[in-house]
């Protein structure tokens, strides 16, 4: 037999429950600490609050992993609040921004408490299929009689039921290889180019023309490969590579084979 109402709340696997006396969760604690100090949030020393928190944990006398995690959340919130005060005020900002922010935070925390209280109250109510039952059904937990409220609802439920069986792991996306101009191709291009023998030509002018709709990486590779090819040909003694008089461009001049 299963006495649902006797099961303590804390035994669920996916629950981070901090229930130490009057405190329920770290943000309530934070708010209490902040309230107790009765100071401007700008003046909060994070160190001081950390000290308070450690003192509180000593009192709680049971260091649990959840507490450490909650502590991180609390610190993040504090850091957030402080950061909101450190950033410069916009010119049209209201001067009572600090107060608004604090009140906003307080309201959020009270709302969070209220939602928790409501969830707690729900968990203490009898639940159909668990603590009370409809008449005459072999399996009350079955879903066959449940009314479908909307097509989207039906779809989502059905999807959830089927997904784990039918959806395999998605294969990793295949990355399309880049289209680039290789140095060999650039070399071929330079060799076939009909360069004037008595004049220097700007190397950029020797770069092969762009194809229609090419990607940016292809364009960059055309230039880079042509420069490398020009250097290669200079090494082989077939070109002279020199800076143009403007100091920006690079020019090439073909050399006759010896």
């Amino acid at each position, binding site marked *: *037999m*299963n*006495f*649902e109402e006797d099961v303590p709340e804390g035994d*669920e696997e*996916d*629950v981070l*429950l901090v229930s130490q006396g009057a405190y329920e969760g770290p*943000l309530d604690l934070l708010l209490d600490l902040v309230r107790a100090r009765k100071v401007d949030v700008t003046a909060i020393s994070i160190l001081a609050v950390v000290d308070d928190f450690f003192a509180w944990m000593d009192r709680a006398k049971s260091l649990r992993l959840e507490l450490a995690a909650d502590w991180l959340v609390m610190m*993040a*919130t504090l850091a*957030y*609040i402080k950061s909101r005060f450190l950033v410069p005020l*916009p010119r049209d*900002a209201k001067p009572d921004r600090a107060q608004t922010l604090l009140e*906003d*935070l307080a*309201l*959020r925390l*009270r*709302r*969070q408490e*209220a*939602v*928790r*209280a*409501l*969830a*707690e*109250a*729900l*968990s203490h*109510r*009898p*639940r*159909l*299929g*668990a*603590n*009370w*039952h*409809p*008449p*005459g*059904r*072999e*399996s*009350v*937990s079955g*879903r066959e*009689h*449940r*009314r479908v*409220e*909307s097509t*989207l*609802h039906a779809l*989502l*439920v059905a999807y*959830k039921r089927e997904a784990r069986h039918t959806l395999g792991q998605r294969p990793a996306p295949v990355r399309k290889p880049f289209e680039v101009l290789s140095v060999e191709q650039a070399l071929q291009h330079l060799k076939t180019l009909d360069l004037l023998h008595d004049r220097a030509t700007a190397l950029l002018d020797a770069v092969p023309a762009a194809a229609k709709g090419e990607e940016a990486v292809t364009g960059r590779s055309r230039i880079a490969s042509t420069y490398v090819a020009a250097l290669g040909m200079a090494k082989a003694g077939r070109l002279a590579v020199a800076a143009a008089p403007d100091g920006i461009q690079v020019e090439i001049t073909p050399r006759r084979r010896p």
Partner: protein
Amino acid sequence: MSAEPRHVMEAILFAAGQPVPAAELRRLLSGADPEALAAELQRDYEGRGLVLSLTRGGYAIRTAPAASDLAGARAGQPPRLSRAALETLACIAAFEEAGSPLTRGEIERVRGVGLSPNILDALLQAGYVRPGRRRETRGRPLTWLTTDHFHDAYGLASLADMQAYAEMRDEGLAVIRLSDAVPEEGESEDEGIPA
């Protein structure tokens, strides 16, 4: 021989299994007042193993929670709801009752933690929540509502039956703050308090 109207109503509810709306009962009972009959039936059931439950979807006959342990052992237990799932359910129900259904993002803001997809899945599977209208804002996010089955399961005519909700509403906490939905100031993509 004509049966007493309240017995006819009892038979209808027993055969239906699921909640029958008051309007349908009135039609079936040719004009008799279901509310008055329900009160009579409720008196009949005092000290019995059955109860008459008034939920959002109508009237239903259910086993009395105090007498249901053996019936439950025979029927098997539905999956338990985790605390996170219950809180999410409470959020959805409370804000629906207050007239401003929440989107997924707002549920996260209200609870102050991220919403794992498993939670909504579990609630969907239990049949307690359903998607509602899309909010006509950026991204047209889906809002979430509770089902009649949720009200049936917890024996609620409305969430206002619950003291915890009434308190929340009276304190003005069942509201979406402006800062939940939009960045507070300027163009910053402010995500609110990372509670």
